[in-house]
């Protein structure tokens, strides 16, 4: 990973009538990194991507990819990118191979042995008509389409929708390999866990505004978890409420549940010696809770 900037947006703003889909977005994505673009549905992720790719034009501000203006140099930019649109649709009457051939013809310079390799890795059937494929299998064709010309920049809008866990893992490996080879991956998603597994940095967007850009490691430490503890004897509320990072404690007899965003060490130290821990489960907090954490920490208003 170098400090060269691959994707840059400056004051990027998009209004649809009175609706502010995107507000003054300043974002830098570095070359060689996997950048996770995280936000709930309707936050503006797709609008950002569509603006960067010149599908729609910004109300104000600008975007550039590889130093080229997203509108003026749109054609040149597309020689260097691979793209998986959100809610992917393709031509139902073409087979997977026809579809890839079509785009290969428009793009030029596709290595077919690479395509076959990708198809094998993802387990994609390229002989069937796209319209006859399940959504996950259709998604695989879309992914191959984006990877097939070894792009310098991969822009993907919720690309793992419909993929089963095994294929998702393979797909994540492919993203890491791409980044390791010096390309940039821009990955939008609404699932934190996916982004955490592959991304170097994460941008969080909500209501069209970029709330934070964080390294994944620091996001992880900030991430709240839902923790359930089960003891051999009934527990007392007071033991937990005073702990750093603990909120919303509910004690029901032997069972204590809480939200927790501190170090697990703190929690374990507090209970050890006092009770015998029978079971512990922790769950990743959902995105909404992370946002709440961010609002609390950084005073961002919704």
């Amino acid at each position, binding site marked *: 990973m170098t400090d060269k900037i691959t994707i840059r947006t400056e004051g990027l703003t998009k209004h649809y009538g009175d609706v502010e889909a995107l507000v003054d977005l300043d974002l830098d994505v570095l070359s060689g990194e996997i950048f996770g673009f995280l936000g709930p549905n309707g936050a503006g992720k*797709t609008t950002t991507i*569509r603006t960067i*790719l*010149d*599908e*729609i*034009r910004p109300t104000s501000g600008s975007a550039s990819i590889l130093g080229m203006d997203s509108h003026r140099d*749109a*054609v*040149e930019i*597309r*020689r260097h*990118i*691979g*793209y998986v*649109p959100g*809610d*992917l*649709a*393709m*031509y*139902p*009457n*073409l*087979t997977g*191979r*026809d*579809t890839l*051939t*079509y*785009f290969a*013809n*428009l*793009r030029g310079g596709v290595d077919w042995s690479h395509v076959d390799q990708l198809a094998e890795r993802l387990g994609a059937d390229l002989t069937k*008509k*796209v*319209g*006859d494929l399940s959504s996950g299998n259709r998604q695989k064709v*879309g992914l191959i*389409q984006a990877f097939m010309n070894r792009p310098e920049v991969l822009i993907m809008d919720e690309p793992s929708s419909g993929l089963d866990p095994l294929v998702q893992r393979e797909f994540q490996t492919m993203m890491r390999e791409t980044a390791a080879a010096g390309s940039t991956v821009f990955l939008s998603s609404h699932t934190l866990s996916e982004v955490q597994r592959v991304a170097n940095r994460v941008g969080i967007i909500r209501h069209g505004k970029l709330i934070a850009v964080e390294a994944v490691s620091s996001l992880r430490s900030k991430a709240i978890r839902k923790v359930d503890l089960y003891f051999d004897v009934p527990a007392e509320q007071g033991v937990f409420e005073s702990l750093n990072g603990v909120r919303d404690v509910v004690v029901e007899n032997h069972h204590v549940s809480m939200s927790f965003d501190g170090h697990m060490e703190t929690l374990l130290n507090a209970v050890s010696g006092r009770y015998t821990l029978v079971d512990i489960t922790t769950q990743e907090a959902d995105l909404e809770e992370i946002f709440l954490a961010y609002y609390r920490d950084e005073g961002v208003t919704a």
Partner: protein
Amino acid sequence: MLATVVTKTVRDRWKGIAIAGFSLAIMLLFGMAVYRDIDISVYTDLPEAFRSLINIPKNADVGSLAYGAIYSTYGALTLASLALSMGSASIAGEERNGTLGLLLGNPKSRTHILVSKASSLVALTALGALLLWGAGYLAPAVLNVEVGGMHIGALVFHMFAIAVFHGFLAMAIGAWTGKAGLASGITAGVMIISLFAAGLLPLVEGWESGAKAFPWYYYEGSSPVLNGMNWGHLAVLFVAIAVLGALAVVGVNRRDLRDKATGVNLIDRLRTNPMTKKIVDRLAGSMRVSRIWIKTASEHQGLLIGTAYVMFLVMGVMLGPFFNLIEDTLATFTDALPEAVMALVGNGDMGTPEGWYQVETFGMMVPIAFMLVTVAIGARALAGEEERRTMGLLLANPIKRSRVVLEKTFAMTVYAVAVAVATFSGVALGSVIGRLGMSMGNIAAATLLGMLVGLVFGALSLALSAGTGRSRVAIYGTIGAALTFYILNAFLPLSDSVAGLARWSPFYYYLSSDPLNTGMHWGHAAVLLALAGGLVALSVVLFQRRDLRQTG
């Protein structure tokens, strides 16, 4: 739930009905205004056979001329086409969109859904008929024209019956096959063939009663606008409607629903056959996707084949020998027909082969055939890919938006050329078989001018498609414009004071130079070409400036 399905369908469809009703009302108003200005006494001396053919009563007045010439044919064609599109969309269309399963996820039977769809079809057709009925009374009132003795209500009721018949035919085919394209294709074929058969067969000696085999006969055969309701004919139509409805119920219940369907066409079959696999793979696989325009062209093969087939065989080859059969009957018209009537039916002298082909083939069918293919491609070219969400993917490739527009235009032109070849060779062959001795060069000239008119409206639909990203707007907008311009061109020349205004209609540059008799008019061709070119250029500009739509 039943009411919900009806309401949704009505909400989706009422605009089309309203636009059609409005256009027809304007046409009627316009036709009456023109007829009011001209001396219509010429019509009353027409031979009986001809007058009944174009629905003009013996004591013709302004009103009857307008109703006979405009309402009875255009009105019925429009209303029946709308019903047809609703019928084919009702079951098969929802299957194609993958929404039928969702609908059936509710606790209602397939029969329920079908009945709701059928009810909304009937309701909307009735709404259209009501609009036409209202306009039928309003127009003469506005223009202060006397329409005594006209049975407008009866005409519109017959119209309603024939429209519902076609809607139910399409619905039944769709219910049995699940293929919306097939349903509209077959029904449109039935409609056109029966329209011509019901009009022409009565003129052939010994074949008069053959017309009774065709549905259209039960609409217009009794001239309801002159003679009022013909309950016998209506009964035939309503029995047919009931039978088709019952067939649809049986069909939709006995069949496996199609998955969000991809059609299996001839190429697909050949592709799975080991003997033909290799060569077809090259054609279907590599060639079909080698260029944007080839891929676009490959998407409407069925429509092209159907249109080319009808133009070649029915409108071309068959009409040659047919002319021989009824030449004598036609000859008696020729002497008696005043110029004004000729203008109305396409300015052809029906006693000559050229005039015959002009009235039957070139007057209305040639522009319709060309527009069918050019508007189908033009309207869907850009908006279609946006609506199916493939445009983003396509434009992620290193190509300019203008190239997409131009390649789609090229596909449209290729289709128009194919229809032109079919039309030309059909008419030429018809002339040879019937020994009519028409000039090949003149046939080519008329065909070429027709093709250019088709391209003008194709380019208009392309521009609407490029500007709005909505294929429905493009289709309805183009149909509305084409109808208006066609009528302008047909009726304005009848009145001296406004004849010059016809030049504002693209159709003026198609047949006004009488190309079948006088050959190519290059000036007119240039006007049409410039118009089409201008509209394509406009499409490029509009498409480049716009945000792509995101539907979903």
